[in-house]
């Protein structure tokens, strides 16, 4: 293999989910097997690198200085903000079609073991949003583990006290279509804790 090929392979290997073998296969495919695809890929990469940004308001993906598609949609309720860890979490909730408010993407959660502190999260803009008074309700859709729990606590402790916002955390319980029998005891416990009136 040539030095340039190896450089490309090394760069591909840095990508998530791609190991040494996959990197080799992709590089060979691009350079030897289907070289015609290469210019389109290079152009797409360059264009995306130029234009894709974080939405200044919520942290979702956006083009240039414009707000993201969710923030730009005037039919959505800007007073209800769903806080998620990552952009794919937002995509998953969007796909469900169950939420008509807007989002805030933290781009991570507090994780001292991985050296992620509050400064590494997209927190300040959220606090600004709450302070501006535009937010009535926060729905915390963070993961159901120690780090998600700690992030929720940290966040709620730092909300400006002047504007009263309703804060809730999404429920943890039985998966849809799942019976009680096959749920583990922790899931059952949170499902029981989070039970609702039947009416």
């Amino acid at each position, binding site marked *: 293999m040539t030095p340039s090929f190896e450089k490309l392979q090394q760069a591909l290997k840095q990508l998530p989910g791609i190991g040494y073998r996959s990197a080799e296969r992709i590089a060979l495919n691009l350079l030897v097997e289907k070289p015609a695809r290469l210019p389109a890929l290079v152009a797409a990469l360059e264009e995306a690198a130029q234009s894709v940004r974080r939405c200044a308001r919520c942290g979702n993906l956006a083009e240039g200085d414009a707000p993201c598609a969710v923030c730009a949609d005037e039919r959505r309720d800007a007073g209800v903000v769903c806080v998620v860890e990552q952009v794919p979490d937002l995509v998953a909730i969007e796909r469900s079609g169950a939420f008509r408010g807007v989002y805030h993407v933290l781009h991570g959660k*507090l*994780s*001292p*073991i991985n*050296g992620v*502190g*509050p400064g590494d999260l997209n927190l300040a803009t959220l606090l600004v949003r709450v302070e501006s008074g535009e937010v009535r309700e926060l729905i915390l859709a963070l993961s159901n*583990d*120690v*780090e998600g*729990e*700690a*992030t929720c*606590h*940290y966040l709620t*402790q*730092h909300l400006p006290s002047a504007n009263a916002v309703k804060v809730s955390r999404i429920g943890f319980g039985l998966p849809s279509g799942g019976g009680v029998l096959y749920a*583990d*005891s*922790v899931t059952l416990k949170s499902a029981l804790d989070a039970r609702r009136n039947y009416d």
Partner: protein
Amino acid sequence: MRLRSLNLRHFRNVTLTRLEFSGRLVCFVGGNGQGKTNLLEAVGLLTALRSFRTPDNRLLLMHNQPAAALICELDHERVGTAKVSITLRRDGKEVWCDDTRVAKLADFIGRFPTVAFSSQDQQLVRGSPAGRRRWLDVAAAAMEPDYLRALLAYDKALEARNSLLKSEGASDAELEAFEVALAPAAADLIARRSAVIATLGAHLAKAYERIASGAERPALVYRPDFDEEPDAEALLARLAASRGRDRMFRTTVGGAHRDDFELTLGGRDAKDYGSEGQQRSLVLALKLAQAAWFHERSGVRPVLLADDVLGELDAARRREFWQAVDPESQVIATGTALPDATLGNWRIFRVADGEVSPEP
């Protein structure tokens, strides 16, 4: 539960062996250092994928071999027959149970219980709190999936708080965020430990009575590092109050990770006041209590692994020990001499330099 066959490859000094067991009593006989205990150790892995001799599974691999494998066939009270296959590598392990891959320890731990009696057991009386805690945690986690979850949740939150304490710039607010997760996990773990110790203690008293006819009653006494009620609010306040000291030591100094328990006789700590023989009987009784608790709790009789411990007892105590053992439990023993034939029909295997051969 009864072990019906044991296949080993590249496990410690055993290159390859296949053993079949038919009866209740099995004994590996051989000189010192021939590999008798290695065979028991392999069977002991069935409980929690941990050796009763070492916390480091890499030591179980034969020298210069990339992997060790163990396949067992079992008769089991709940699932009928089962085939368990465990492959250990330097960087991890793979477990299959009846041709299904076991993905999580929680799905496996405790399903195939064994209880090991070894000469190292006396460390449970005399040794460090860490050793006692490890034993209690593994035994309880094997019996109660919720104990394992509580332990893992506690460890995770503790690790996060300790990482914060090690980094210079952690704010009080960050510490508090993880204390809020740590305190309920600690309360949960302490409550579970307290319950487990109470149950084990009751079994211990019964077992001790049978193997040592003495007036002094044994007990298991929980010594939590935080000695008040396991209340999440109070624990949270303790954590907040100890931040200054914890920052100085750059770790969480106090908490459930420093818990201990004591074995007492007649109300006095057996470590300081028990005689050699009393201590020995006490740990045997503790292991018998563990086996009885396993059986009571899960309906499965653990396989008892007796690693030459009985060699250290005098004839009277040995007899009492065998009388205290559940007569239905399978016993796999090791010894340098043939076992006591009055106990029943032993299936004997000779062990020499990692080679095991059945005695006709």
